[in-house]
């Protein structure tokens, strides 16, 4: 329980209406997109300015109160969870686009701005913000910065870090710093790049300078239908190997197609082994030829059909099916758990085979909807949350998938982050010295570890507890519900 004086001080800073401390008010804030983990903050505040965030953080520093920032709450690794209780700083009121400078292709935005709003604000002038996570209608830029979010079009254009040029940051002791800026290659250490993807453990971002991209004059979207995932995977490697870099290459397997069709009716075949969604963008000239080469490659890998979207409507429908795929799982399963391992793309066929084996061995269904071009897998493990036995099997199968990814030279997360979900798995890909170097950085920014504690790094002296299903745990006086 917080001292009433702290609540009062916070009310002073942000106004009484912007402080939630009653249990029923805080229900929404007990988890993010990774709903299986829950922890309730002692207090949730809604600051409306950089100044208010800084004051609240200074207070937390003084009172030794842990704190965590939260944006749209769509994170999939528990990054915005108040695992040690304390203060949650909801940034949803810092939601203004402060500046748009098209001549310089820059925008300055507050962290609570929803990803898609930026593109909507500049679309009519022919510009867009490139990173496009599937949750882009709800996730915020602050969250994107924390997680270094990706999306389907990162194959060609990179992830959040490649599009963020500068930040205003509240350090964990309340000092405000500015990193980077509208120009490029500032002297000194690249703190902007270090902060992006640090999962909110180094400070709280209150302003972001992003790069705006010019829309290309032509876009072509193709759907290639294969009898097997092996064929589809090999086609992906071949497209890249032959010197073509599409804007996106997405893959869906039969189970995913079935769910998506039931939900969106995007025109995907439901009886195919796997489908590739390939998007080309760039200049009009030469695009037909490139598309023809892709069709050839697909045919060489026994594609039974290659369809080209005839107009924007068809294109958007195909993408809608892809972007709503996670949500579509509700049509075929009561719950799902999504993995985010990433592998060298040439290892796709064997890893997908492993995933099929794992599904069979644990007796669960696994759908695959993922960024094939990047080798970023998203196996969706389908189960019924109410059945403890199924939950346990899903967790074990998921851990095994991660081990396979690590074993083929891959990594634990392509875009969802480590959070609390995978912190104990970090030793699969990093040695003690690797983690020690990262922790030195954390100690410089966040020496008292009050800023988003319990994330990213394995708990010292504790191995992952997957043991018998636990419904409730108490850590530091806070309920952590795990399955």
């Amino acid at each position, binding site marked *: 329980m917080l001292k009433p004086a702290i609540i009062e001080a916070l009310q002073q800073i942000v106004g009484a209406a912007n402080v939630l401390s009653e249990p029923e008010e805080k229900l929404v804030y007990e988890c993010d997109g990774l709903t299986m983990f829950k922890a309730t903050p002692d207090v949730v505040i809604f600051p409306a300015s950089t100044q208010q965030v800084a004051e609240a953080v200074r207070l937390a520093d003084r009172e030794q109160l842990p704190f965590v920032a939260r944006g749209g709450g769509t994170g999939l690794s528990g990054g915005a969870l108040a695992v040690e209780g304390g203060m949650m700083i909801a940034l949803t009121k810092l939601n203004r686009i402060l500046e748009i400078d098209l*001549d*310089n292709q820059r925008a300055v935005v507050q962290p609570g701005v929803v990803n898609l709003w930026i593109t909507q604000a500049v679309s009519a002038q022919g510009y867009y913000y490139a990173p496009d996570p599937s949750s882009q209608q709800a996730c915020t830029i602050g969250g994107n910065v924390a997680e270094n979010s990706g999306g389907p079009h*990162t194959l060609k254009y990179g992830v959040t*870090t490649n599009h963020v040029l500068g930040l205003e940051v509240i350090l964990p002791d309340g*000092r*405000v*710093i*500015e990193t980077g800026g*509208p*120009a*490029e*290659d*500032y*002297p*000194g*250490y*690249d*703190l902007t*790049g*270090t902060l*992006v*993807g640090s999962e909110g453990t180094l400070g709280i971002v209150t302003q972001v300078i992003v790069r705006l991209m*010019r829309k*290309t*004059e032509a876009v072509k979207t193709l759907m290639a239908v294969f009898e097997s995932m092996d064929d589809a995977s090999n086609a992906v*490697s*071949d497209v890249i*190997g032959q*010197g073509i870099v599409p804007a996106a290459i997405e893959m869906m397997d039969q189970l995913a197609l079935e769910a998506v069709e039931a939900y969106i009716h995007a025109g995907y075949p439901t009886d195919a082994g796997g489908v590739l969604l390939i998007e080309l963008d*760039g*200049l*009009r000239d030469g695009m037909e*030829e490139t598309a023809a080469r892709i069709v050839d490659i697909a045919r060489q890998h026994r594609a039974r059909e290659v369809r080209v979207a005839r107009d924007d409507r068809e294109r958007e429908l195909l993408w809608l099916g892809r972007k709503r795929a996670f949500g579509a799982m509700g049509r075929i399963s009561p719950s799902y758990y999504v993995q985010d391992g*990433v*592998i*060298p*793309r*040439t290892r796709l066929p064997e890893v997908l085979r492993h995933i099929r084996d794992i599904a069979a061995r644990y007796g669960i269904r696994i759908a695959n909807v993922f*960024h094939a071009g*990047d*080798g*970023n897998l998203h196996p969706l493990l389908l189960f019924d949350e109410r059945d403890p036995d199924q939950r346990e099997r899903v967790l074990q199968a998921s851990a095994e998938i991660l081990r396979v990814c690590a074993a083929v030279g*891959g*990594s634990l*997360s*392509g*875009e969802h982050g*480590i959070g609390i979900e995978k912190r104990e798995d*970090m030793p699969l890909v*990093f*040695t003690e*010295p*690797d983690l*020690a*170097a990262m922790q*030195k*950085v*954390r100690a*410089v920014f966040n020496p008292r570890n009050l800023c988003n504690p319990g994330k*990213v790094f394995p708990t010292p002296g504790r191995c992952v507890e997957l043991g018998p299903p636990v419904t409730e745990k108490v850590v530091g006086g806070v309920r952590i519900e795990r399955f």
Partner: protein
Amino acid sequence: MVDASKVIEELQAIVGVECVQAMTSLDAYRVDDRAPWAVVVPGDIEQVAAVLALAHREELAVVPWGGGTTMAMGHLPERLDLVLSFARLDRVLEHEPADLTATVQAGITVAALQAHLGSRRQWWPIDPPLSAAATVGGVLATNASGPKRLLYGTARDLLIGLTVVHADGAISKAGGKVTKNVTGYDMMKLYIGSLGTLAVIVEATLKLRPLPPSQELVWSIFTSREAAAATAQRLLSGGLLPNAIELINPPVTAWLRQTLDGPEGSEGWSLIVGIDGAEAAVVRQRRDIDALSQAGGAISWWTGPDDGRLWQALQSRFRPDGTARMERIVIRVGTVRTQVGAILDQLTALATRVHAPCELCARFGNGLVYGGFPLHGDGQAPADLAQALMEIRGDLASKRGYLVVESAPPSFKARFDCWGDVGSQAEVMAGLKRAFDPRRILNPGRFVHHL
């Protein structure tokens, strides 16, 4: 006091007698006004680690040395004992074309890497100055780039994994071998451009691109800076996808034309645009750029294949070889693209004021301007240059731009802050240096705020 002969013996035991140079003139490894007393050439990562552990124990100042092309960068070294040469760590370790990735040792030159990748029709899309000598490790440590960053980005966009050796000899890696990865902190960003002051880069995994089937240059000449800049801006807001847009002033134009083919006859400001891609796309872009240039008032133009020579020649003008005699002071200004014209005018006016010719090259799309100011015959900088640069720096800072001196003779560096102030970030940066290199053995004094 360090017992040099004992240290040399220990170094010899680590890397072999033939891989330690000492007790001889090491002027070729001079950094500004200091020369090391030993040059060590390790043959693997473990040897690098052992050398650093020794340097750490004895508190010896170490300069990691790749091709030596950027040694003029930064403040005067505070101390210099050992040069750690990467001459033997120059191999491609892995190249998987279908993954578009390669893992290399830090000492491989960019030219050797591109030749290797080129045999499989791929490249690492970075075109730094002096690429025949510049190494991958050096490019990363100095965040070097070239004209094609406009389309392809810089090291921070094209590096996916890194192995470093820390000041105390610990070996750690960051990132991995996959092109998309958010597992743990992005430590690579911290090491890129840190001038080897936090850790020593020993291996890197790079993100590659296919070599474009066709590459061309379109070079137009304008009578005024305004006309050239306006054309560049129109080009960027049109639908084209140039890989480079460089705007260069009349003295550099004249020099380039003596060196290479180019537009005939006229004097003026050059706009040189690079294009690449499928043949059809290149033909279309060339046509559109010609039309834009002519509409913008170009007085002559030239088109030719881009074989890399022109960009290398242009960049060499602004990246004096660190080991050669210093002939000019080179500065870099960073600002937003719409301010580039004003900066070019300011620097031109400055040159008149200090009675020195100046050579200017703007990487227009990225808002970067390189300026070269020749030194007098006695090696001294023009009088008042430092003062004039300080004024421009102050002006830029108010608009969140910056000015750094990339190379200058020691006499100039002794009274000019090469990097300028890093503002509110200073304490964090100093904290990082303390955490990673508490004994200050890695390039001490050379980076921002003399870290």
